[in-house]
């Protein structure tokens, strides 16, 4: 018998706890207010530079791989939102350090799921500047594109799932680092590099590119495919296939990271 009430009750408790951890993450960030404001400003300017870049490109062409100016902006906005939300939720460096130096032990002695707890404490509040900026870009693009309410709903569903996949991917990469390497710097670097590529239509990279960014490093699920929904470029069948892949990947990554985490033996001595 599955204790549904028990599960829901526990879920609500953990959600409240996560919210508390968020409060603390922001408390810490606000200790360094000046720094935070500077990050926010640089994020904003960076997105403006992006806008300029796209403007320049579209003075010499009217479409890239069949995507118009506003459609490309929409893609860039969604990719930016996806990755930065995932970066907000999970900070690979923080978690890796906790594992590598044994600070993770402290999470294991508290009455909560340790992975959940450490992820909550790793919240990277500095990503909020990027999230806000890309959100504004999203609105700007959305105002110049036609889409239905159904499309918006389908988009949100896949997008949220995509963020989940991305976050779990980061957890997998962190635990892989822990088991096989001795630093996690390459994780952030890899995600950064891959993100550059997923800001453009995946069709530019041929079949290999599409497969790579859909299944191997599934950033596409949080950028390209949700954008295709908003720009009406995907069929219903296509959508369902991608959705199924996303669900499968979420499950696979979750299982994989749990398995890798079992090799945590704490710092010795």
């Amino acid at each position, binding site marked *: 018998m599955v204790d549904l009430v028990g599960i829901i009750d526990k879920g609500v*408790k953990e959600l*409240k*706890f996560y919210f*508390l951890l968020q409060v*603390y993450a922001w*408390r*810490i960030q606000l*200790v*360094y207010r000046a720094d935070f404001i500077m990050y926010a400003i640089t994020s904003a300017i960076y997105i403006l530079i992006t806008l300029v870049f796209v403007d320049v490109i579209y003075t010499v062409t009217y479409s890239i791989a069949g995507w118009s100016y506003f459609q490309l902006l929409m893609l860039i906005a969604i990719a930016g939102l996806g990755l930065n939300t995932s970066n907000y939720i999970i900070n690979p460096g923080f978690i890796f350090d906790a594992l590598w*130096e*044994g*600070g993770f*032990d*402290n999470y*294991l*002695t*508290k*009455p*909560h*799921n340790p992975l959940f707890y450490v992820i909550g404490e790793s919240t990277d509040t500095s990503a909020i500047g990027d999230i806000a900026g890309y959100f504004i870009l999203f609105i700007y693009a959305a105002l110049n594109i036609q889409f239905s309410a159904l499309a918006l709903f389908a988009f949100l569903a896949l997008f949220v799932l995509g963020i989940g996949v991305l976050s779990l991917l980061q957890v997998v990469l962190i635990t892989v680092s822990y088991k096989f390497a001795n630093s996690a710097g390459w994780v952030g670097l890899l995600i950064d590099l891959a993100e550059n590529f997923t800001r453009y239509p995946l069709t530019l990279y041929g079949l290999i590119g599409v497969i790579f960014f859909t299944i191997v490093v599934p950033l596409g699920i949080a950028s390209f495919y949700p954008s295709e929904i908003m720009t009406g470029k995907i069929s219903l069948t296509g959508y369902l296939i991608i959705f199924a892949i996303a669900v499968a990947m979420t499950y696979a990554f979750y299982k994989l990271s749990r398995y890798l985490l079992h090799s945590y*033996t*704490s*710092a*010795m*001595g």
Partner: protein
Amino acid sequence: MEGDVVIEAYRLSKRFKSFESKTGEKGILTSLRKRYVYKTAIDDVTFSVKKGEFIALLGKNGAGKSTLVKILTGILKADSGEARVFGIDPYRNRVELAMSIGVILGAHEQMWEDLAAIDTFKLMEGVYGISKTAFDERLNYFLKVFNLEKVYKKQVRQMSLGERMKCNFVASMLHRPKLVIMDEPTIGMDSQSKSSLFKALQEIRRKYGITFLMSTNMINEAEELADRIILLDSGALVFDGLPQELITLTGSKKEIDIHLTKGANVNFGRFGRITMHKGDYIKLEVARKKIKSKRLLGMLTSDKIIDYSISEPPLNEVLNKFYESRRKKS
């Protein structure tokens, strides 16, 4: 009595894989050519702890104390044997156990450095689901007992090590655990902070009847605080008994380095054996009991003495004497 047993450890063993990678070679697959070596951390350890006891887990670095602590707190799983804390398997029912135990890991800070200490305390209120009234009451008590009333609003980054460690204790006890487990909590602390910490622990123990388990590599700490000492050496449990017994067995002495004022003439001979006398410096070997002698202390603090320090016999020596005495018995 059954109901009184808090910790039950039965034939616990654990070993670790450690890597030996080849160095000094430039090669494509160097990183893949690693060799595994097994190191035994603890070997067939059995003991139990009753409610209200203060147990010291004594051993050199690498003796297996930390591993044992981690098994009892659910961080690690033993390879074989059984551990039960409050009747619970720590590894399988970690979350359930976490509500009844407080863990202080000397090597890992749990206080948020950039915030004031009180902020981390309040976080614990949420972590453990403590009611506001209980929280306020306990916090006031702990702040008083640990003498943190003047500093708990300071940013942790700006605190001294002693203050920080005390904060760690408070954070791990606000939920009123029935068992407090500590893994080398006094590392790096000066003797003054240590003694005020110990005083606080003893006072808390008196008031709440909490059971304590503390791992340490310093025999004087074990002697001062514990009802019982469990001595580990290379993963094996070699002694489980009263501090007095251990001291009698090892007959340890303490050594006092004394720096006399120029030309002072003081006779320490009747307190112990003078092992070195060079100019104004004397090394005096004294039986443990004699350290508390008022006469000796009076002489040490007189103005004929510039400075003195009492040193511990290293744990190695204690262990050697211990094995020697056991051999003599058999």
